[in-house]
C-alpha cells in the first residue's frame, strides 16, 4: 500500500522537451514578433495561456474541496493526482501575475483598454467603469485572489500529508479538510467571478455578461477533468497506481461527458440570450466570431467541446476504454484551450489572429511545466492517501450497476 511514485522517464523527457519548446517560442516571439499585430499576439497569448493554466489548477482545488465536502470516496484512489495538480497553484499564479503586471506596467493598452488614457477620455461607457476597472483595484484583487488560492491549496495539501504520517483511523484530518474546503468553496464562489471580470471580461471593456464567471468555471473544470484522466491513464500505463481500475476510469469518463454538456449549456445560455436580445452593446462581442475572422474556430469550438464528447462518450464501453478516454480527453483539452483563446483573441485582434507556431509553442511550454510539476509533486508523497478513512470504499468502488 505504501506505493511511491517513480517518475517515468517519458514524463521527464516530455516535460523537458515541451518546456524547451515553450522557452524557444517565447524567445522567438520576444525577438521575432514585431509590429502592431506581432506585439499584440505576443502578449495576448501569454495572458490567456497563463490564466488558462492557473484556472485549471484552481479548478482542481475546487474539485478537491467539493469532493471533500460531499464526503465522496470515488476519487480517493487517485486523490494524490488531484492534489499534485492543485499544489501548483502558486507556480501558475506567479507566472500569471508576472504576465499581468508586465501588461499593466508596460502600458499594453490593447489588452486592457481601460488603462488607456485616450480610451478613457473618449469612451464614456468604459470611463464609467473605472471605480472597478482601475490598476490599483486590479492589483489588490489579483494579489488577494492568488494568495488565497495558493495558501488554501498548500494548507489542504499539508493536512493530507499529515494524515499519512498519523495513525490509521484518526478522523481529525477528515474534519479539518472539510472545514478548510468549506472556506475555500465560499472564497472560490466569489473569486472565480471577480477574477474573471477583471482578468478576462474587462479585455472587451465595453461588453458585459452576468454569466461570465460561470463560463470560465465550466471551461476550466472540464479541462481539469481531461487532465486528470490523462495523468491517471499515463501513470497507469507506466505500471503504477494499481488500485485504479476501469471503475474509476468510468467515473472520469462520466465527468467529462456530463460537464461537456454542462459547459455547452452555459455557453448556449450566454450566447443565445445575447443573440435573442440583440442589443448592440452586448451582441457586438460575438461579431468577429460569428461573422468574421474567427468563424472557423468558433464553430470548431462547439463541435469539439460538445459534439465530440457527447457522441463518443455516450456509451458505457467508451467510458471504460483507456484509448477512447485518452483521445477524447486530448481533444476536449485542446477544445477548451481554444475556448480560452476565443475569450481573448477576437477582442484584441479582431481580424488577424492565428493559431500558429507561437500559440502552440507557448501552450506546449505550459503543458510541459504542468507535467513536470505534477510529476514532482506526486513523487513527494505516497501514491495513495494510506490513512484516509474512505480508502477502502475506493477499493471496492463500482461505477455502474451491471
Amino acid at each position, binding site marked *: 500500500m505504501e506505493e511511491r511514485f517513480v517518475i517515468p522517464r517519458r514524463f521527464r523527457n516530455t516535460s523537458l522537451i515541451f518546456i524547451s519548446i515553450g522557452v524557444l517560442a517565447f524567445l522567438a516571439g520576444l525577438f521575432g514578433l514585431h509590429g502592431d499585430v506581432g506585439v499584440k499576439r505576443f502578449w495576448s497569448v501569454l495572458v490567456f495561456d497563463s490564466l488558462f493554466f492557473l484556472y485549471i489548477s484552481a479548478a482542481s482545488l475546487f474539485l478537491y474541496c467539493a469532493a471533500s465536502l460531499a464526503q465522496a470516496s470515488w476519487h480517493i484512489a487517485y486523490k494524490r493526482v488531484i492534489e499534485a495538480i492543485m499544489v501548483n497553484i502558486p507556480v501558475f499564479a506567479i507566472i500569471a501575475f508576472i504576465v499581468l503586471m508586465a501588461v499593466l506596467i508596460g502600458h499594453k493598452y490593447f489588452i486592457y483598454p481601460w488603462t488607456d488614457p485616450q480610451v478613457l477620455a473618449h469612451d464614456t461607457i468604459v470611463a464609467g467603469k473605472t471605480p472597478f476597472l482601475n490598476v490599483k483595484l486590479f492589483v489588490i484583487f489579483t494579489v488577494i485572489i492568488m494568495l488565497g488560492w495558493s495558501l488554501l491549496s498548500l494548507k489542504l495539501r499539508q493536512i493530507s500529508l499529515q494524515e499519512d504520517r498519523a495513525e490509521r483511523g484518526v478522523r481529525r484530518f477528515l474534519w479539518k479538510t472539510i472545514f478548510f474546503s468549506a472556506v475555500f468553496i465560499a472564497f472560490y464562489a466569489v473569486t472565480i467571478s471577480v477574477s474573471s471580470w477583471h482578468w478576462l471580461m474587462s479585455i472587451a471593456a465595453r461588453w458585459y455578461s452576468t454569466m461570465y464567471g460561470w463560463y470560465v468555471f465550466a471551461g476550466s473544470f472540464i479541462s481539469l477533468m481531461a487532465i486528470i484522466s490523462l495523468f491517471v491513464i499515463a501513470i497507469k500505463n507506466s505500471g503504477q497506481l494499481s488500485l485504479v481500475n476501469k471503475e474509476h476510469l468510468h467515473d472520469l469518463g462520466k465527468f467529462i461527458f456530463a460537464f461537456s454538456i454542462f459547459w455547452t449549456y452555459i455557453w448556449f*445560455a450566454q450566447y443565445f*440570450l445575447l443573440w435573442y436580445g440583440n442589443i448592440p452593446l452586448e451582441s457586438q462581442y460575438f461579431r468577429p466570431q460569428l461573422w468574421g475572422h474567427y468563424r472557423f474556430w468558433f464553430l470548431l469550438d462547439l463541435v469539439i467541446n460538445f459534439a465530440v464528447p457527447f457522441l463518443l462518450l455516450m456509451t458505457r464501453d467508451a467510458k471504460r476504454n483507456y484509448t477512447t478516454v485518452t483521445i477524447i480527453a486530448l481533444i476536449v483539452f485542446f477544445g477548451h484551450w481554444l475556448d480560452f483563446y476565443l475569450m481573448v483573441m477576437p477582442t484584441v485582434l479582431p481580424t488577424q489572429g492565428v493559431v500558429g507556431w507561437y500559440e502552440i509553442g507557448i501552450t506546449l511550454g505550459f503543458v510541459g511545466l504542468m507535467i513536470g510539476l505534477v510529476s514532482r509533486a506526486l513523487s513527494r508523497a505516497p501514491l495513495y492517501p494510506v490513512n484516509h478513512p474512505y480508502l477502502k470504499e475506493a477499493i471496492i468502488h463500482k461505477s455502474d450497476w451491471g
Partner: protein
Amino acid sequence: MLHYESTVREPLVNGNKDYHQVTEDIISPIEKKPGKLWWIALGFAVTMLLFGVWSVFWETYWGIGVWGENRTVGWAWDITNFVWWVGIGHAGTLISAILLLFRQGWRTGVNRAAEAMTIFAVLCAGQFPVWHMGRVWLAFFILPYPNSRGPLWVNFNSPLLWDVFAVSTYLTVSILFWYSGLIPDVATIRDRAKKKFAKFFYGLCSFGWRGTAKEWQRLEALGLLLAGLSTPLVLSVHSVVSMDFATSVIPGWHETIFPPYFVAGAIFSGFAMVQTLLILTRKILHLEEYVTLGHIEAMNKIIMLTGGIVAMAYITELFIAWYSNVVYEQGAFWWRILGPYWWAYIILITCNVVSPQLFWFKKLRRNIPFTFVMSIVVNIGMWFERFVIIVLSLYHDYMPSAWVYYSPRWPEVGFYIGTFGLFFTCYLLFAKYFPVIAVWEIRSVLKTSGENYKQKMAALEQKDTEEFLQEVQHEHALAAH
C-alpha cells in the same frame, strides 16, 4: 458481494431492521384507517381548494380585469406563483435522477415523497398560465397542430411556447419516474391486502408485478434510462422558464446568468419544500428511523449550497447592472432596492441570503424545529425573489409617465391559496394510500447502510488495507469463476 461502507458515515436506516421490518414500518400506516389529524388536514386542504376554484371561476366569468394587473405591470402574482411552483417541483427529479447518478444512498429515504411533491407542484404551476389566458376555452390554441384557423400558428420563436413543451415534458417524465418506482411497492401492498377492493385496486395499480428477476432487471434499466433523460430536464425546465424573462430586453430580466441562477433557486426552494413535508410526514407516520437527522442535514447542506449560488447571482446581477454603465440597467436596480417596493427586496435578501447562513452551524443543520422554520422562510424568500424579478422590473419601466404601483386583488390571492389546497389535497391522499418511502429502495441500501449492519462492519474497518484489498481481489476471482 462484499457489503462495506466506512463507519465514518452515519447509518441511513436506524434501529435493528431486516427486510420484513422495513415493509412493516412503511406499509402498515396505509392499511390502517386514517386518523383524525388526517381528516382535519384534508378538510383544510379541500376548503382552500374550493376557495381557489371560486376565485378562478370569478376570474373566468368576469375576465382578467378582476386581477390587480395594469398596463405597466402585465405580469404579476400569477406568473410569480407559476415560477414559484415550478421551482418547487425541481427537488424531486434532482433527488431521483441526479442523486441516483451520483449514487447518493441517502436519496432512498426521501425520493418517493419528493417525487410525488414534484408532480403535485408542477400540476399547481400549470394552473397559472392556463387560467391567465382569460378565454381559457381557447387554451388548445397553444398546441401546434395543423388547424382550421388558416395561417394562425403558435409562435415557435416565443419562449412561452417552449415553456409549454418544457413543463409538459418534465411532468410526463416525472410521472413515469415516480410511477415506475412505485410499482414494486404497490405490488407489496397488494400482496398484503386483506380487503377485496384493496386487493383489486392495488392489483390494478401494480400492473401485475410479480417480482421476477427479469422484471427487476427491466425496472432498474428503466430507472437508469429515465435518470439519464431527466437529468438534463432538471436543468432545462427552469432554464426555459428563465428565458420567458431573459430573452426580452427589459432591464432586470435580460441577463445571461438567468438560466443557471433560476435552476439553483428552484432546487433551493424545492428542497425547502421537501423539508417542510418530510419533517411533518416522518413525525405523523413515525418514520424517524428512515428519514433520519442525517437525511435532514444532507438536505440542509444542499439548501446552503444552492442558497449560496443564488446569493452570488444576486451580487453578480447587481454588480453587472452597475458595471454595464447602461442607464436603464442601473435604473432598474436602483428602483428595485430604493423604490416603493424596497420592503420586498429586503424580505428577499433576509430570507434567501442572510438567514440560510445560520446553516453553517452543524447544530442548527441537525435541529428539526429550526430546519422546519427555515424551510418555510426559504420558500417565502423564493416567492419574493420571483415577485421582485417580475413586478419590480416592470413597475418603473422606460417611461416615467407609465410608472405604477401594483397590488393584488382577492381573486389572485384566492387562486394562489387554491393551489395550496390542490397541493396538500394531493399530498395527503398520496401519503395515505401510497408508501411515502420507497420500500424496495430502502432494502437496497439496508445491508450497507442500516445501523445494525453497520455495527458488524467494525471488523472490516479494523482490517489492514492490504489484507482488505486481498480479500476483495479474492472475492472478485471467485465471482469470475
